[in-house]
């Protein structure tokens, strides 16, 4: 028996594929005195790894997930546990066939090659036992394969042991986590206690239970995924090895089928979502098979059997082929479908590596290990960062509602703008009632209901209709309205009110506040009181961690304003860097302030008509902020804009927001005010101004020089990422962020098509564009530019292509469209001199 050490540098809890990968990567990066424990026996302690179907499809529409997957495959290959089988995603419907073209595009954007669309006859050649009459075509990825995940885990564990870095303890149940002053202090187990300041929770479906021991939450839910195994299949009798035919994903029925030795495995994501709670999972002793292999519920699978029979009559319809095994396997679902990675915001030193599937586990483990070691993961995990969740995201109601809703979308055709339908109306701004009256169509960000456009503005189409690029194809007119462009044009002509209450707001104060922010911000923070600074934040490797604005409200008082989506992980970044001496404090004031943007050439007229103060350009210049009285409301106005227009962000106490809205609205009538939605704010107006967005253009994998945001000089003061940034400035950029415009929208069938983002940018002859670091060029943001009369795309391009006037193509639903580089760097397409903004 293993004796547990009394102290360790890090305890990895959970010995599935994630825990073993974690232990290995930590050891590889030089960590010593690692303890890996699991309540079950090795190599298969009873979690989801033990019953996983173990296949890996490479392409996902998410860049982050694809990068994790590709890295994982490289690791599995290196371990010698990957068997390439090829993978076929079949289409039974025309809509799916279109979706497969989109998958080809994602493959090209993320550099997955080769891939191809194949006709039914070719599908038949690849999978002779498939009834090709059922399918219209398929997406073929030869690089798809299966892994022996238990073997991979064993090999990684052994490697860590060979490095002398790790103590492995099986059959060791975690019974408690000690937390002292908000930091992990130890792990209690039934075999003894271990003192440690770092813990990684790799407990799959049990992760929430373990995190709760330390007072933290990991918002995932165990859910059932049904699988059956039929065999022995006569056709497979002569094949050697585990798999000799490509794995098939029957996308339209939410199912997959694969050879597994003599058997044929059929899995489904089509049945009703069956969620469990971590505490309901049986113990190892109580389990017939394993805790995560629950009794099969036949009724839920009846339809799936019929569908499998349709597609594979020769195997599934063979009366000699029996259903040899069927389970309700447990896996982890999260409310937004992404993993839960990183240090928990609640407890320092407690890391989550949860809601991870076989296909991405080693890549994620490597990322987290890098993150733990020096804070600089090679792959940007921001969409998976566990710090992304707001409190309401962590409620059972939210987790269950969204996980259930997401489950049946596992193979779904999900539009990039698709909205959730469950658990809405959680965060409502004080303007909500008025917005509803105006026919707002609400999209959700971080729980906030935000108007995306207003149906009440439909009349603007009479005025601006000829300048609106009407969308003819159903796909890009879905979750879109031409009214967005009309609102945009009305704003540029007159003035608009934009609800920005979803902003996350942090007030920083104290004698050390300036020094503290100076340490994080790239831009100079030592500015006069009343200045507003837009600044990126970098990680130590010089990747862009965030971009936000900071107002200096007093000598020791600052207000940080950042986007709703990134609010919580930005907050963690700020909190993590607070000075130990307590000289600066951070207060999350998000729920205290509502915000309305008032922008457009008539914005000053509007605000002046209700303000007690002088709001002239001289009195209230660009990039300044101060308190102003608007009727009875004492507000904070900040003269900046993300839409490139004259105007202010006006901050008011949440409870005074309704009054503020009405006041501005009434005053606005005289100057033709329109309400404008986030469709204008985040896309059309932003793209015309070449403003970058975090998560689209800005991420850890690109630096400020590449993003065209380097600025003429670097401040003297030290800040996080400065060395890397200075270094980047010395180098020739390997890619430059450019704005491109689409030259011709007409598809081969004569329909005008409009890209939505994430499409591959290709050379004129359709070849990939790869920069010196191996990164592909793809569309980071796309949208209409109604004022410039063009559809605008942003993309990072290698220097040889990053020249104004260069002709390239963008692939959209399988067809190339010509595009031209319009801007290199951040010069706006509209109003390059920013006269509208600063006038």
């Amino acid at each position, binding site marked *: 028996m293993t004796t547990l050490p009394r102290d360790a540098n890090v305890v990895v809890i959970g010995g599935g594929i994630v825990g073993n990968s974690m232990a290995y990567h930590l050891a590889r990066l030089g960590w010593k005195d690692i303890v890996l424990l699991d309540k079950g026996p090795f190599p298969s302690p009873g979690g989801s790894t033990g019953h996983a179907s173990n296949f890996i499809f490479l392409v996902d529409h998410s860049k982050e997930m694809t990068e994790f997957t590709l890295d994982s495959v490289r690791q599995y290959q290196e371990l010698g546990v990957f068997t390439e089988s090829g993978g076929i995603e079949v289409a039974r419907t025309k809509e799916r066939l279109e979706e497969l073209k989109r998958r080809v595009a994602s493959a090209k954007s993320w550099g997955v090659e080769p891939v191809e669309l194949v006709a039914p006859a070719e599908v038949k050649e690849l999978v002779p036992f498939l009834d090709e009459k059922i399918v219209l075509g398929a997406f073929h990825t030869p690089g798809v394969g299966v892994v022996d995940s238990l073997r991979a885990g064993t090999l990684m564990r052994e490697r860590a042991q060979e490095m002398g870095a790790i103590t492995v303890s099986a059959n060791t149940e975690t019974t408690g986590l000690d937390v002292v002053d908000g930091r992990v202090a130890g792990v209690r187990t039934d075999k003894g206690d271990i003192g440690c300041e770092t813990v990684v929770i790799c407990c799959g479906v049990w992760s929430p239970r373990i995190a709760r021991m330390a007072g933290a939450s990991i918002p995932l839910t165990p859910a059932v995924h049904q699988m059956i195994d039929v065999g022995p299949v006569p056709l497979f009798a002569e094949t050697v090895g585990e798999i000799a035919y490509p794995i098939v994903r029957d996308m339209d029925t939410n199912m997959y089928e694969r050879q597994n030795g003599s058997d044929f495995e059929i899995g489904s994501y089509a049945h009703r979502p069956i969620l469990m709670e971590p505490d309901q999972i049986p113990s190892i002793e109580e*389990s*017939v098979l394993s805790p995560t292999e629950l009794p099969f519920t036949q009724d839920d699978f009846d339809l799936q*059997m019929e569908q499998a*029979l349709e597609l594979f009559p020769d195997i599934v319809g063979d009366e000699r082929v029996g*259903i040899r095994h069927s389970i309700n396997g447990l896996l982890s679902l999260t409310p937004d479908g992404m993993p839960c990675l990183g240090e928990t915001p609640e407890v320092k030193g407690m890391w989550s590596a949860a809601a991870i599937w076989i296909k991405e586990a080693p890549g994620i483990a490597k990322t987290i290990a890098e993150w733990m070691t020096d804070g600089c993961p090679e792959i940007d995990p921001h969409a998976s960062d566990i710090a992304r969740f707001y409190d309401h995201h962590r409620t059972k109601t939210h987790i269950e509602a969204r996980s259930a809703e997401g489950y049946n979308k596992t193979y779904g055709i999900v539009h990039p703008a698709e909205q959730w339908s469950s658990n809405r109306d959680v965060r409502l701004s004080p303007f909500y009632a008025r917005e509803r009256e105006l026919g707002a169509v609400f999209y959700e960000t971080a729980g906030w209901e935000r108007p995306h456009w207003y149906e009440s503005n439909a009349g603007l189409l009479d005025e601006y209709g000829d300048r609106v690029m009407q969308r003819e194809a159903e796909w890009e007119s879905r979750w879109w309205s031409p009214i967005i462009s009309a609102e945009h044009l009305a704003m540029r002509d007159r003035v608009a009110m934009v609800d920005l209450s979803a902003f996350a707001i942090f007030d920083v104060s104290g004698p050390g506040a300036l020094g503290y922010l100076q340490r994080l911000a790239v831009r100079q923070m030592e500015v006069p009181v009343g200045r507003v600074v837009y600044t990126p934040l970098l990680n130590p490797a010089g990747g862009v961690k965030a971009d936000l604005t900071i107002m200096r409200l007093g000598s020791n008082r600052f207000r940080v304003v950042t986007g709703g989506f990134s609010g919580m992980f930005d907050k963690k970044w700020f909190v993590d860097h607070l000075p130990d001496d307590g000289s600066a404090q951070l207060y999350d004031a998000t729920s205290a302030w509502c915000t309305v943007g008032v922008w457009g050439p008539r914005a000053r007229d509007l605000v002046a008509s209700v303000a007690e103060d002088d709001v002239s350009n001289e009195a209230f210049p660009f990039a300044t902020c101060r308190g102003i009285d608007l009727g009875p409301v004492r507000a904070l106005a900040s003269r900046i804009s993300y839409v490139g227009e004259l105007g202010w962000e006006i901050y008011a106490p949440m409870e005074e927001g309704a009054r503020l809205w009405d006041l501005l609205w009434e005053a606005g009538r005289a100057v033709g005010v329109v309400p404008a939605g986030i469709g204008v704010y985040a896309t059309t107006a932003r793209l015309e101004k070449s403003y970058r967005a975090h998560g689209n253009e800005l991420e850890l994998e690109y630096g400020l020089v590449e993003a065209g945001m380097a600025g003429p000089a670097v401040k003297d003061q030290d800040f996080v990422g400065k060395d890397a940034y200075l270094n980047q400035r010395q180098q020739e950029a390997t890619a430059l962020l450019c704005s491109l415009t689409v030259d011709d929208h007409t598809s081969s069938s004569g329909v005008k098509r409009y890209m939505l983002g994430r499409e591959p940018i290709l050379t004129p002859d359709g070849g990939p564009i790869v920069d010196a670091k191996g990164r592909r060029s793809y569309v980071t943001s796309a949208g209409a530019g109604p004022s410039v009369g063009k559809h605008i795309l942003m993309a990072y391009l290698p220097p040889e292509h990053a020249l104004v006037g260069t002709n390239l193509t963008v692939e959209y639903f399988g067809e190339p469209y010509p595009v031209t580089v319009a801007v290199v760097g951040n010069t706006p397409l509209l109003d390059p001199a920013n006269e509208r903004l600063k006038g």
Partner: protein
Amino acid sequence: MNVLVCVKRVPATGGRITLTPDEQEIDTRFLGFTVSPHEECAVEEAVRLIEAHGGTSVVLTLGPSVAEEQLRDALAMGIGEAILLQTDGREWDPIATANAIVDVVRSREAAGMAFDLLLFGNEAADTGDYQIGIRVAHVLGLPCVAGIKALEVRGGAAVAQREADGGREIFEVSLPAVFAVKEGINLPRYPSVPGRLKAKKKEIHRIVPEKRGGGLEKVRLKLPEEQQGEVEILGSGPEAAPRVVEVLQRLGIVPS
């Protein structure tokens, strides 16, 4: 030839058994349900008999509404028809169970659908009463061979075998007759997908049985004192070989 096979729905145990707080049942929160193993072989035997000789097969169970699942399992394996003697789920003792089955057999007989073979499992996995088939046979005046591991039907007679020390005992009876089957008589097939789908569409005849008899009444269940199975380490490496052979001899696998 008409074959009746009687099955019982039982929890598919495998892990540590726990009881409900009232000590009346096994806690089945984490368990699936299955046909008791001897009876699964009886179902297979019935299917094979009909495949070989033609005729009809009927599966019957006495149990709660959800026992339909086990009937469908049998239908999926190839049984033709299913009868559910639907109860509230509480246990019926062997006399009451046997009487309810007899009622069905007699009413079928009255309708001109007499059974030639009535197959039972030798004993149910859960209650282990060893008597339902014998009681049914007795009331119906039929011969009963219990514990059989082979069955062959020739004309109006059947030859059954059962295991006895080192060999087999042979029984021959004329039909109709009752047989209580033991696991090992065959290797039950796994139902195929088409079998499952056909079974799903079949009608289940539901009958509310009359409860007559009793005399054995459950008071409570209890768990036996845990007997921890300890592994005996015979040694390390090739030096352990003599001890391995000692064990083989002790188990009667290598003559001593």
